[in-house]
């Protein structure tokens, strides 16, 4: 299956813990993203990486640290989890330089619940 995959699908943890979410794409894309979808279904970009380099960082707290070991992976590590971090986190990918279509392909999401 060619797709964007995320693990885990569900993550329940206590406040103050550190957790990671992994994302992988086998579409041959070179740009990857993390989005946060809050309880009101509002979808907001957090980070974007192109060829392992950070290109977009949308005023996300320092507790969130993305890591891209290679073009096919973009992981999200979150330190000192807070209640407000509870959300669904979506990974997405895209092939840069492929106008006019700038479609992003999304992963299935990771539902994070902080207790």
């Amino acid at each position, binding site marked *: 299956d060619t797709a964007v995959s995320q693990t885990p699908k569900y993550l329940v943890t206590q406040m103050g813990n550190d957790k990671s979410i992994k994302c992988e794409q086998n579409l041959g894309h070179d740009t990857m993203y993390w989005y946060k979808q809050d309880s009101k279904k*509002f979808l907001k970009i957090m980070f974007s990486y192109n060829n392992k380099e950070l290109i977009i960082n949308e005023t996300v707290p320092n507790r969130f640290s993305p890591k891209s070991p290679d073009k096919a992976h973009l992981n999200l590590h979150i330190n000192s989890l807070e209640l407000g971090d509870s959300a669904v986190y979506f990974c*997405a990918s895209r092939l840069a330089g492929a106008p*006019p279509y700038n479609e992003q392909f999304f992963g299935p999401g990771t539902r994070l619940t902080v207790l």
Partner: protein
Amino acid sequence: AQRVTQPEKLLSVFKGAPVELKCNYSYSGSPELFWYVQYSRQRLQLLLRHISRESIKGFTADLNKGETSFHLKKPFAQEEDSAMYYCALANNAGNMLTFGGGTRLMVKP
């Protein structure tokens, strides 16, 4: 700055009725607009993009630069159309999508 507004949080229609999901944008460059759909507890998937001028699952959307709108329409709604719909705007570099707040479409039998 680019901005996308979807004024309706919820749109409820009966099966067979026409549907119009509104989207307005604000962008100083040349807009590239998309509609994404998210069925219950599933990933977002692209529904259509203005540049293709296509019709997918009976949905169409026309870019109106004068009104800065990209409304999504379908003449006869089906129950399986029930989902969250997001309008999105790509920046000129194409590396960033700004999403509207989403509209939940409920199609009742």
